């Protein structure tokens, strides 16, 4: 670096807005992410090229090349769109059902006793175990996939919401009582806002389950989707395509969680300051 360029850099960094951008927490966490992903790909490259060189273990560059090909032909984007539509629909229905059931179970002991056997019974039956049955009932189309994702989402949201309602500190409710709150007011103005962080945590965990269920369901019977793409790749020994599938799943999950966290910090920050 020559003296002049060093001066130029120093000058740029000492300019308030440049240094603010470079040292802002967002920039730093973004930088860490880039570094983290870069390291992952580097390790992958070393493993696939030098340690286990094999046609069955694609190096990252070959996978990227394949991904570009699949994107250009439009196949990959169609699969992503199909899979994401299933996930979001199933996740939305599952959360919308799980949330009121969880609130009801947390608030009313009668409903907790009534529904607890069901949640305790079904939560140990994985969605994949219901796959065959779902296909027999709903056919190979969208309904069976969405059904399974709803199933995978609902119990996690129910249990987290219920746990949230139960763990509202007693003093928060007592304080409202002696300020003159009715039962309805306590529910909407105290229990519900105090439970929001639990509901959001439940939804984030449920999103992970929705991904797993989606891939399994698509592998066992679907016309499109990332799982179906990977299953087809397996049949023809297209190892690169399999790796593209894995890469896409990881990136989609990561992106979905980021969006979710952004929405929380944008709209529900005050309910969950610790997230």
């Amino acid at each position, binding site marked *: 670096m020559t003296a002049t360029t060093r001066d130029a850099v120093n000058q740029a960094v000492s300019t308030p807005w440049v240094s603010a951008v470079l040292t802002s927490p967002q920039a730093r966490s973004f930088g860490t992410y880039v570094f983290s992903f870069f390291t992952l790909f580097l390790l992958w490259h070393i493993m696939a090229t030098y340690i286990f060189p094999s046609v069955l273990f694609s190096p990252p560059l070959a996978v990227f090349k394949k991904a570009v090909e699949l994107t250009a032909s439009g196949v990959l984007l169609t699969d992503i769109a199909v899979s994401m539509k299933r996930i979001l629909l199933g996740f939305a229905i599952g959360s919308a059902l799980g949330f009121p059931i969880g609130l009801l179970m947390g608030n009313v002991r009668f409903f907790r006793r009534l529904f607890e056997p069901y949640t305790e019974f079904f939560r140990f039956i994985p969605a994949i175990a219901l796959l065959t049955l779902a296909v027999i009932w709903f056919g190979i189309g969208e309904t069976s996939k969405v059904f399974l994702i709803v199933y995978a989402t609902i119990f996690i949201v129910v249990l987290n919401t219920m746990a949230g309602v139960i763990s509202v*500190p007693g003093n928060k409710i007592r*304080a409202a009582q*002696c*300020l*003159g709150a009715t039962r309805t007011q306590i529910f909407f103005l105290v229990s519900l806002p105090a439970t929001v962080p639990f509901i959001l945590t439940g939804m984030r965990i449920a999103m992970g389950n929705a991904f797993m269920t989606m891939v399994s369901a698509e592998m066992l019977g679907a016309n499109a989707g990332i799982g179906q793409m990977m299953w087809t790749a397996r049949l023809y020994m297209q190892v690169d395509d399999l790796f593209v599938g894995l890469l896409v799943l990881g990136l989609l999950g990561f992106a979905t969680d980021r969006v979710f966290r952004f929405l929380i910090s944008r709209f529900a920050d*005050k309910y969950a300051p610790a997230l």
Partner: protein
Amino acid sequence: MSSAPLVAFRDVEKSYFPTGKPRFIAVENFTLDVADGEFFCLLGPSGCGKTTVLNMLAGFEAPTSGTIEMDGVAITAPSRDRGVVFQGDDSLYGWLTARENVEFGPRLSGVSAGERREIATRYLELVGMRAQSEKRPHELSGGMKQRTQIARVLANEPKMLLMDEPFAALDAQTRRVLQQELVKIWQATRKSVLFITHDIDEAIILGTRIGVMTAGPAARLKEVIVVDESVGHDRRHPSFMEFFKIIHALIEEEVNKTLLREQDTQSSSVGGTQA
């Protein structure tokens, strides 16, 4: 007392019935009148059932026998007539700012937004919280949180304040400051207070009357001491120490009783006879 008391405890007993264990009498033969405008401190060794008395007056717990009346009406449930300031800060609503916490009571009873704001401003100023009013509880110090609690209760204009060791968790310096300010607030509002404490010094500084309780279980009111208003509120007053000595002797008697009883149980468990 010439006029009818604001609050009347008559022969109140509170017992708990744990399953598989003998019943536990927390408080018995508790009789007390509190007049309107009085600052009554309930003082006693730890575990003597002071909080049980407060919880029954608040309406959080029902007495096993005996009656508690306010203005001649039996207490059956919590009411906005009796505002409670809790020891811990978990009664504040973390998703609301200090101001919104103070507005909570008026909001429940449908007071308009503008009027609510006015009320909150007035009481936040009274407790010295004007500069901190837009912060949320997790951004406030322990002392500030207790100030917010006091403002929240006052803003709801109860007939009486119930305070359950509100300063016990604060550092000595903050506690002294808040004690002085509470005296000022009480002198300005002349609101009746039932104040629970185990700190003799605090009781003399704050109270117009001090009720000393016997050691639990089966605790009762041992003695009631009237503090002359010129003596109370001032640690430097020549008679302050006199009150301290008298009350200290009463408490010590109770603490010693507990110690003796514990020694007895220990010796009886190795074959001695129970006293």
